């Protein structure tokens, strides 16, 4: 089926903005991380849209690479988050402010 270009682009912009909102407003680090994933997905959608618009396979490849790297990043990032928050009570990003000043 078909849809117009701006449909997809609008979707990707909204995804990106919503992901940004989630990053800024939530204090749970895992939810923040998920918001990042949302942003990445929005970007992927945009890449694909343009790939089709300009009939260029580069966008496809890039999306694939983003996907892969996001996976690796998720692994390492989650490991770090667990390491930081396991000894603590409650999960609040605002508590880790040892870099203050």
């Amino acid at each position, binding site marked *: 089926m078909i849809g117009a270009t701006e449909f997809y682009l609008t979707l990707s912009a909204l995804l990106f903005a919503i992901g940004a909102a989630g990053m800024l407003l939530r204090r749970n*680090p895992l939810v923040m991380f998920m918001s990042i994933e949302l942003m990445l997905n929005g970007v992927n959608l945009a890449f694909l849209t343009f790939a089709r618009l300009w009939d260029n396979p580069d966008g496809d490849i890039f999306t694939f690479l983003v996907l892969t790297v996001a996976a690796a990043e998720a692994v390492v990032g989650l490991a770090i988050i667990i390491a930081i928050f396991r000894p603590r009570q409650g999960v609040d*990003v605002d508590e880790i402010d040892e870099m*203050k000043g």
Partner: protein
Amino acid sequence: MVEAIWLVPILPLAGFVVLGLLGQFLPMPRPLVALIGCGSVALAFVAAIVTAVGYSGPSASDQVYYTWTGLGSGGGINIGLWVDPLSLTMLLTVTGVSLLIHIYSIGYMADDEGFRRYFAYLNLFVFAMCLLAAADNYLLLLLGWANVGLASFLLIGFWFSRPRAVQAARLAIVVNVIGDAAIMLAIFLFIASFGSASYTDLFKVTTGNSGLAVAATLLLLIGAAAKSAQLPLYIWLPDAMEGPTPVSALMHAATMVTAGVYLMVRSAPLTALMTGPDAALIHNVIGWVGAATAIFAATIALVQRDIKRVLAYSTISQLGYMFLAVGVGANDAAIFHLVSHAFFKACLFLSAGIIIHALGDEQDMHKMGGLMRRMPLVATTFAIGTLALAAIPPFAGFFSKDAVLAGAYAGGYYALWIVGLIVAFLTALYMGRAFLLTFGGQPRSEAAAHPHSTGLSMAWTTAALALLSLGGGVIAFIFTDWFAGFGTVGEGIAFSFSISSIISLVVALAGLLVAYLLYGRGQTAVNVPRWLYNAAAQGWGLPTLYHEAIVVPLLALARAIVVFFEHGFLEEILHEVRTLFQQGGKLLSRGQSGALRNYALVVLLGVVVIVIYAISGGAK
């Protein structure tokens, strides 16, 4: 071979570099230091002889090695050496007397920690002095001139743990710099008017620049007065006696202080540029500066207890004689007196050094006495020096001093002639006094009763200088033509027994006689009014005047600046600046909240900015 002249300054320079720089890193045993130090000067002396022998013809030879064309349009500055009788005389005297004093120093400084440093500085001095004497333009001369001042500073303050020595060194360099500045102004005048500072260019212009010549000569006179300790810039020389005695002999008697006289004689052709009345003015100024200094210093020498200070004031007085000679136009007499004075004054200083060394660093003549029997050799050399200085024939001093006085008389400067005679009397008097106090009568202290023995090197070098003082007078007869090249006004030194010589001889003998009457039987004090004695001993109020009029106001000004600016003003500003930075830093550090979300906020803010930029056209 006149081309050998470049070796004369370069060899001591090499000695300085080796001793001063290499000696810091490589261990140098004392014999090696002595060898390098004295050897470089010895070789320089040989080079000077070779150059002199090779010099022929009345005209000078200009050995140019390099030309710096940095003056824009107009000439450049040469690095070259000038070979003519005047410069050769200076070079020979400097290297010759230097050599003897270097060898003497091996013995005198044998126990000193800074042996290597001493010889390094001495070599530096010899290099600078040779450069000064042989330069072919005023700028290069100034280079040597300033370095001679540096060497003086380093050597007067050689024992830098002594506060008095340090103060004396500081005084010397400050007064010297006044002279340096004056010479620099003269050079600026030359370059501005003629575009060059070299002798060849300047002395070619024959007329029409009277005002410039007068101004330049006066500036050069100020410079010469600073270096040669003439009134009113004499004040550093008596204090310079804080340095080691060989240094006093070399620099502050024989060579460095004579640089002023050399400068005046070298600049004599400038007088040819002056019109009549201006020329007479300059002559009188120079002559009277010399005469006033001579009599001033002679009176002070009469009341000194420290043997080195007697000799210091004597040097100032004799330099005054040389300036007097230049003033009356008897340039050859001035240089002749310079050379003979170098011989006998160095001899006197070295003898004094032997005495001081033997008496365990005692310099007060009132604590000496009775040394005639105990130190006969030194007594002889000192006596020879005294007689030469008092101008008794057949010693060298007689011929040279007589040449000066004869020149004054012949030139019609009768007032100067009379002053010269008075100074001759005083000279004989104070030197007689010095000799009798030191050697006559009975020993007045333990040290004098049992003096230590003298080193060999010290003994024979002093003896060599005594011989030169004895026979130096023959120079006048052998080398008359040589001395004629000094631009003398009127007749040369062809010696003749004129009325002036007879009178001066009588005057000198009278001085010695009075000295014997006053001090000959072991007396130490003379019946003069207390106020007169004190005034003379205080330098006729001049040092006090300098202190009150110059030093005290300057210190007060400095203190006022510190209080007003530093404590009041600058510290406030610095404080404010510091606070500014501190507060600024605190403000900025608030941005480091440590909270992750804030950082994310900032990042996204940046993204927004970039997007706005992209929308508004951005970089097309």
